[in-house]
């Protein structure tokens, strides 16, 4: 009932509160508060709609996915230290496993989202939000096809005076493999590695200290940019698509961050190829 504290490699400490929500991360005796939640944007039902080509929600704010309290269960392997994970169920269509392996120095978020309910006739675009108390000066970094990290600033373009027409989507950028925020004062960088291309930004509701990543979308209207049908993938049973994805969260000193996230991106991109063949127990000794 008092929450838990898990220590990982290189001294990274992760704390969960009594509800099973991630609450604090400690790196080099520096403590940052952190929270993670799933929220959604409502798709517009009049005017120009969100669709395959554009992200244009009806309101410039998000809503929580869970209609009731999140349920969480802790699994800890006290004998070998192989498994330290929390299973979180936010709603019937959103669940997540947070893994902390004591032999690694990142926190893994393994989420399952879908089928997105649209019985209320409202399309939804689901984001996961990582909020911290880092001071990033309204600035964040996204990768350019896994190569250069590009500096992005809220409501700003480096080569022209930017007039805001789309307060939320005008600040969304492609995230091919990673997105990061830096607190220069604390000399800390939080990097989120993605397992696929996603849209990402700071949170419009908290421009400092937060990262939003769009993980799934289901929309009921065409955006009239050419595809001619709404972004409403049926999935295997016709009730909507389910996605399962992973984010890895790194918290490091700014100077150390690239040393960690560059090889990790390669490991995510080229995972070991696993195959199986039958065998009888006696063949172990023969082999």
């Amino acid at each position, binding site marked *: *009932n*008092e*929450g838990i504290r898990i220590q990982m490699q290189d001294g990274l400490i992760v704390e*969960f509160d*009594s*509800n*099973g929500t991630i609450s604090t991360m400690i790196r080099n005796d520096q403590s940052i508060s952190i929270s993670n939640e799933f929220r959604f944007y409502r798709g517009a039902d009049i005017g120009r709609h969100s669709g*395959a*080509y554009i992200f244009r929600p009806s309101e410039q704010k998000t809503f929580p996915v869970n209609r009731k309290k999140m*349920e*969480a*269960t*802790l*699994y*800890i*392997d006290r*004998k*070998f230290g*192989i*498994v330290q*994970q*929390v*299973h979180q*169920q936010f709603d019937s269509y*959103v*669940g997540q*496993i947070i893994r902390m*392996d004591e*032999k*690694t120095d990142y926190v893994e978020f393994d989420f*399952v989202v879908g*089928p997105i309910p649209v019985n209320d006739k409202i399309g939804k675009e689901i984001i996961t939000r990582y909020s911290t108390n880092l001071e990033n000066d309204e600035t964040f970094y996204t990768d350019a096809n896994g190569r250069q990290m590009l500096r992005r600033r809220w409501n700003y373009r480096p080569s022209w005076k930017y007039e805001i027409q789309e307060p939320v989507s005008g600040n969304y950028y492609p995230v091919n493999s990673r997105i990061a925020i830096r607190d220069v004062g604390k000399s800390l960088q939080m990097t989120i590695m993605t397992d696929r291309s996603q849209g990402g930004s700071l949170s419009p509701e908290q421009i400092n200290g937060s990262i939003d990543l769009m993980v799934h979308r289901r929309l009921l209207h065409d955006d009239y*940019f*050419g*595809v*001619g*049908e709404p972004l409403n*993938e049926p*999935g*295997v*049973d016709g009730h909507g698509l*389910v996605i*399962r994805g992973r984010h890895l969260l790194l918290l490091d000193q700014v100077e150390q961050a690239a040393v960690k996230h560059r*090889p990790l991106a*390669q*490991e995510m991109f*080229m995972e*070991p*190829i*696993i*195959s*199986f*063949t*039958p*065998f*009888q*127990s006696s063949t*172990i*000794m023969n*082999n």
Partner: protein
Amino acid sequence: EMNITRMREAMGVMQHHDAVTGTEKQHVAFNYAKMLDAAMTQCRHVINESYRKLFPSQTEQHQFCPYLNISSCPATEMGESRMIHLYNPLGHRLVNRTIRLPVKDGYYYQIRNQYGNTIPSVLVPIPEFVRKIPGRISVANKELVFRVPIMESLGITTMYMDVTEKKQPYSAVEIEGEKFNG
């Protein structure tokens, strides 16, 4: 060469702008998925041929598990022992890599390395939100989790999953969950 070319051609098609951005019509998306799946099947055939050359004494076809992303794998979840082959495609070695294999209740599992020595493993429940993914056809309700100490760069590591009906001294330890109730 022909088998790999099928994947080359599929990747060429996927460089069309609508596949890159995801702005293709739904029936086109289905076709792209079908094209990629067929190409991956051909590539698995190439991997099988490679293993056959490297290990001529092994006559069994390798089984692959494309549904491991939804914790489903017929090769591991039917209660039968399996050799596990792990190919590291990276140019650097992997250390303490964690592997998760879907398995079903009612059996005891042991993981051994290539020398036949048992290495620690645990069983963790697959959460309900994964088990109930529509279209997931699987009897697996647990994940067998273990660490592979070292996978050499561009190397093959072989492990053994030994399945028995009776508990063994080093069978995988089952982890119980504790609910947060704050």
